[in-house]
């Protein structure tokens, strides 16, 4: 006899978490909380151009391969929480261009303390952690592509992913200085 209750619990849990995304957020960086702003309205004000600029500044802030689809979702989610995001991204791009920056070290010292710097750090944090908030109900935009696993990917497992076959690991570890590429 099929069980009519089977498996329904986690689904309900996930839906609830997504509905709550805009509700109780503890924000990283300088993003403003706008609890009543519906996600769909935020998405409308987040243009294709905004998304492209978000990827451009992300690539300047982070010296690693970035997935476009993940960036689209992170950008839209951050813009839903921070109406000034487009302007701040544009301002950060202007600082970078002014310095002919190719990597973050070229222009980050010129970013002024305050909302601009906080937003830059929040963008970096989102790419590394895969979330724009660390609230219990936060939506996860990247798991295995979250950059936090990159600096140790030559040794440490991405939890729940296998790095090798059966008993295929050893006690050997490369030197701390050997930063892997990612």
């Amino acid at each position, binding site marked *: 006899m099929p069980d009519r209750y089977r498996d329904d619990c986690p689904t309900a849990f996930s839906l609830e978490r997504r509905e709550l995304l805009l509700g109780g957020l503890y924000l990283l960086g300088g993003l403003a909380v706008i609890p009543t702003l519906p996600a769909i309205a935020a998405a409308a004000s987040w243009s294709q151009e905004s998304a492209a600029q978000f990827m451009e500044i992300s690539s300047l802030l982070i010296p690693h391969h970035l997935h476009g689809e993940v960036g689209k979702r992170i950008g839209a989610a951050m813009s839903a929480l921070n109406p000034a995001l487009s302007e701040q991204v544009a301002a950060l791009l202007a600082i970078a261009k002014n310095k002919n920056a190719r990597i973050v070290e070229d222009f980050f010292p010129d970013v002024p303390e305050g909302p601009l710097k906080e937003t830059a*750090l929040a963008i970096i944090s989102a790419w590394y952690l895969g979330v724009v908030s660390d609230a219990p109900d936060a939506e996860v935009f990247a798991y295995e592509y979250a950059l936090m696993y990159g600096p140790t990917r030559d040794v440490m497992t991405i939890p729940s992913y296998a790095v090798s076959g059966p008993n295929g690991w050893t006690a050997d570890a490369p030197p701390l200085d050997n930063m892997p590429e990612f």
Partner: protein
Amino acid sequence: MASDDSADVVVVGTGVVGCLIAEQALDAGLSVLMLEAGPRVDRWRIVENYRNLPPSLRLFHWDAPYPPKPWAPHLETRKDKEAEQYLQLEGPNARAYLQGYVRYAGGATWHWAGICWRLTPEDMRLNSLYGVGRDWPFAHDVIEPYYTRAEYALGVCGPSDPASQWPPNAKRSQPYPMGPTPFGPGEHRLTEVAAKIGLMNIPAPQARNSGVSYHGRPPCCGNNNCFPVCPIAAKYDAATALPKIEAKGGKILVNAVVYRIETGNRKTVEAVHYFDPDKGSHKVTGKIFVIACNGIETPKLLLFSKDDRNPNGVANSSDQVGRNMMDQPKLIADVELTEPLWTGVGPVQSSSVMNTTQGEFRNSHAGALLRMENFARSPLGAAAALKKGLVGKALDKEIRRISACTARLTVEHEPLPSPDNRLTLSSKKDWLGINKPNIYYDVGDYVRRSAKEYTVPLLHKLADGLGATSFQLSPEFLNSDHIMGGCIMGTDPTTSVVDADCRAHDHHNLFLPGGGAMPSGTASNSTLTMAALALKAADAIVDQLRHG
């Protein structure tokens, strides 16, 4: 064949204990009906739940991928407020009884580490040898064959070299079914450092397939996620037993919350009653009843079944039901090191220092198990490095450094049974109107002395040996999720709840196997002993139904 309302053997709870008994009874030709309070959830959903948690909840919130049903609440710790909802805790060490278990089909083995230590002969004779605690009603050679059967039933990997086996002073009747999993860099280094200060870090026997498939489950591939869930079922969990039980003709009713054990004349258990999720009540009859819903839910159910025939609750003429609650009070030390240690390679736990659990000192303070947590620390490293406001290469370098050069050392102390550490029914009620469990917990001077004079100094020595530059000790004792003692075993019906087969002294057809029956907590993880007791009880159940 069992029906929805009757069977030869009615098993309440679908964790490791209930499942082992169910399979044994089915193999003996008996009909079996299992009742589970919570839902039956597929592995992939739990893995998805886990991966969809924000990084801060993926570690140390093992309950988070297991949202409970309203009718089967368990501990939730995603938010502070949630943590206060179900378990009602009091006493000087209330925090040390914040027990995580899963009210899902498959039970708490969903998020156990899989560690399978055997007790030593001394662990079973604490009172005779050291004048503390209680003795078991039988000797180590009686439980040894059951340990072996449990190791083969669960699929335990372990070393073949006797010098690395535990206990060192008791013979094994069979080798482990599989060899040990390899050490990663962290556990390898810890072993070397520990040896220099006389601590023997040995491979932990684990219910994890090592190098080969076993019982239809794949070999461990080092996914480093044993808790909160093994994504590939290389680790034994009781959920993997459920289809086998059904294939043998067993029936499993989920979302069936047993709330009353009904006894008849002559103290025979006649039935159990359960609520469905619509709060409808149903009755199940049988010949033998097994209550195996873990060390908290079982005594809660016995107490809640109080009626005119059983004024203190079922099986409680001794007044010991819910007393003697035990778990290994745990302390953790977070350390920062000058050199990389590299955890996060292989299973989340693969070894422990065990020689610190034994000794004449047990007449004055607790023995303890020491180990290092082997989970990947990259999320912790990333969070800490980001908090420093670093960017670019400096950020990556700091993530790598913190992830590699930090560790968590853990010590788990042996508890003694105390009647004051007691589970009672709270005045607060759950969604179904069933009283929540209330537990008073004090780890006692035996453990406090051990921490002060023995284990914390050892932790410092171990940290120094590893080259620690900082050492942060947890400010209070924590839970280890090894719930024991609430239906304590003994030969005297006036001072214990169950006999040597986990049969209730008060009711000849009621069995209460599992951690609750254990007379000594010891420093070792409890599951293999629970499994051995389950198999011993299963033999007694089969024998009782065959021969009366």
